[in-house]
């Protein structure tokens, strides 16, 4: 097969599969936020990638501080929390100022948030410069381990995956095992009725939007461990994450996870055997064709419309 021995193909599959897992983690974190927002309010947030960049820049900034005060070993946990909080607050403000006026016009929300993403990109460029920057990583995140001869597994990939796992479980617990999540799901299913039983649906919308943005911030923090950050970093992932959400079936947590996994794996494995651009084309094309045949996505929520 392509001039490789069977064993080599096996190793390549494992390593590419693993690099696919890092991509999967970042995509999953991005898509979780988007899926919550889209499933809840039917709003398309084109600036979602920029919220991820906010998280990434927060981490980079904190890492510079950490170097100065010599706490590189332990700052990363705080960076993740800070990235979440800053993106959350920003999302809360944006919802209050912009999104809530546009709920009845989803297509217009799409354009307005695209405008927002342009403004945010320029803000990043003016404050942090056009060059890509990277965070100082603590030592325990660097390096790799070798389970067998010929297979290298980078530790930062494992870390990002663990983070994605923790966030996914937290989102699950929040959505399905808490009062707040109950309110969110109630509003999602029937807004008018939820309002009638005393849920402040506007407040729920605001918190949900902010939460989605906050998770994007965590995605940004995770992203700094595998690549460097530039003003347009977020926009590179936005179409992919939309595809994840739409492909998985909006408002379905399982669907989002499954489609993030499928898309990330397909991309990284295909990119090894074809050129990088053709791998991406093949993946996206497959998704579009499947979506054309099955518009409701892989795991459609079973609700009557």
């Amino acid at each position, binding site marked *: 097969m392509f001039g490789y021995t069977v064993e080599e193909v096996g190793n390549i599959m494992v390593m590419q599969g693993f690099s696919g897992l890092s991509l999967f983690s970042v995509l999953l974190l991005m898509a979780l936020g988007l899926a919550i927002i889209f499933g809840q309010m*039917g709003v*398309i947030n084109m600036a979602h990638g920029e919220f991820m960049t906010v998280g990434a820049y927060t981490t980079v900034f904190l890492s510079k501080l950490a170097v100065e005060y010599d706490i590189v070993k332990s700052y990363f946990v705080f960076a993740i929390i800070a990235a979440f909080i800053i993106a959350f607050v920003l999302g809360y403000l944006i919802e209050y100022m*912009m999104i809530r*006026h*546009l709920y009845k*016009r*989803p*297509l*217009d*929300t*799409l*354009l*307005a948030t*695209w*405008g*927002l*993403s*342009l*403004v*945010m*990109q*320029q803000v990043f*460029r*003016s404050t942090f410069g056009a060059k890509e920057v990277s965070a100082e990583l603590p030592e325990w995140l660097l390096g790799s381990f070798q389970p067998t001869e010929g297979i290298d597994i980078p530790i930062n990939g494992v870390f990002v995956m663990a983070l994605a796992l923790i966030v996914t479980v937290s989102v699950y617990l929040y959505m399905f095992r808490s009062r707040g999540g109950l309110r969110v799901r109630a509003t999602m299913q029937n807004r008018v009725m939820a309002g009638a039983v005393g849920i402040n649906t506007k407040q729920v919308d605001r918190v949900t939007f902010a939460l989605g943005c906050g998770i994007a911030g965590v995605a940004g923090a995770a992203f700094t461990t595998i690549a460097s950050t530039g003003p347009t970093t977020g926009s590179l992932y936005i*179409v992919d994450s*939309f*595809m994840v959400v*739409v492909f998985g079936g909006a408002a379905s947590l399982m669907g989002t996870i499954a489609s993030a996994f499928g898309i990330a794996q397909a991309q990284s494995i295909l990119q090894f055997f074809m*050129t990088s*651009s*053709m791998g*991406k*084309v093949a993946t*996206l*094309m497959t*998704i*579009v064709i499947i*979506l*054309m*045949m099955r*518009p409701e996505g892989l795991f459609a929520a079973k609700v009557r419309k």
Partner: protein
Amino acid sequence: MNALSEKLLGGKQGAIHLAILAVLLLVILPLCLDLFRLGLVGKYVTYAFVAISLVLLWGNGGVLSLGQGMFFGLGGYCMAMFLKLEASDPISTKIQTTPGIPDFMDWNQIVELPWFWEPFKSLPLTLLLVLGVPVLLAFIIGMAMFTRRVGGVYFSIITQAIALILSILIVGQQGYTGGVNGITDLKTLSGWDIRTDSAKYWLYFVNASLLILCIMLSRFILTSKFGMLLLAMRDKEERVRFSGYDVASFKIFIFCVAAMISAVGGAMFTLQIGFMSPSFVGIVPSIEMVIFAAVGGRISLIGAVYGTLLVNFGKTMFSETYPELWLFLMGGLFIAVVMFFPEGLAGLYEKYAPYFSITSLHTRWLKKVQKVSGES
């Protein structure tokens, strides 16, 4: 006959507005601007084709395509492929390893003209494909999506993804498409040098006239019974469906028309500017073209043209002097238009024009005179 002209021009008011636009594009701007600036206007006018296609599709049909750039690009590429083949005849490319094929193919070690380039050796076939390829793509996308009742945001996202796929494909397949540089060094159209001054004037006028024709065609569609149904579908799709109309086929039709109009713009772009590149195909140009239509007023065909001209003049001016400010301005424009002026320029005009019309000025003047004479 009268009814036809009524439909094409959109009544007396519509005829006046169209005439003003025609005079501006065909007389005033060519007289006032030097050839370089006029060339810029010509470029903006090609974008205006996309803007009016979006007025049809989005403003009146309620379907927002974020992939109009790909139809513009496909039209442009079809035209560029013909011009490129003509520019790379065996004599002028004799220094290549394989003479007679485009230079970028030679650089990429391709020794034979790929099959899909063959039809572009003939001009009539090319003109057919300029319109045919985008319409076919639109038909396939429309068939797949509208018959399954995919609409709204889903449609926007998927068209955006398709535009992304196409632009990655063009950039990636350098040997067949010219890659990121696009197709450049275009010289003649059937022996007619398109780079001379007189050719540039000719192309400008052909371009502007085609735009006026496209506006009339769109008017005709919108004022017909079909246009009424389109509006009804935008506002209450279910009711139209329950009344027994086949909503999907109407949407497919308008999507194909919009693709065709955009493709005309793309082909004229190639002829006037002399190249075509993937930077007009992807996500960013496609969504920028939406803002042209939105600034002009998404339901007004003529407003869309003014919107395109205005935004692009702004872009050229600002990105020459304050390139950093431009993105802020562009982003702000998106937000402001959507939040505060959803009707765009046309909406502002509708609101304030009666105030400045001759009859209203006259009555106000009369009142003033009466008031003054009453006081004295």
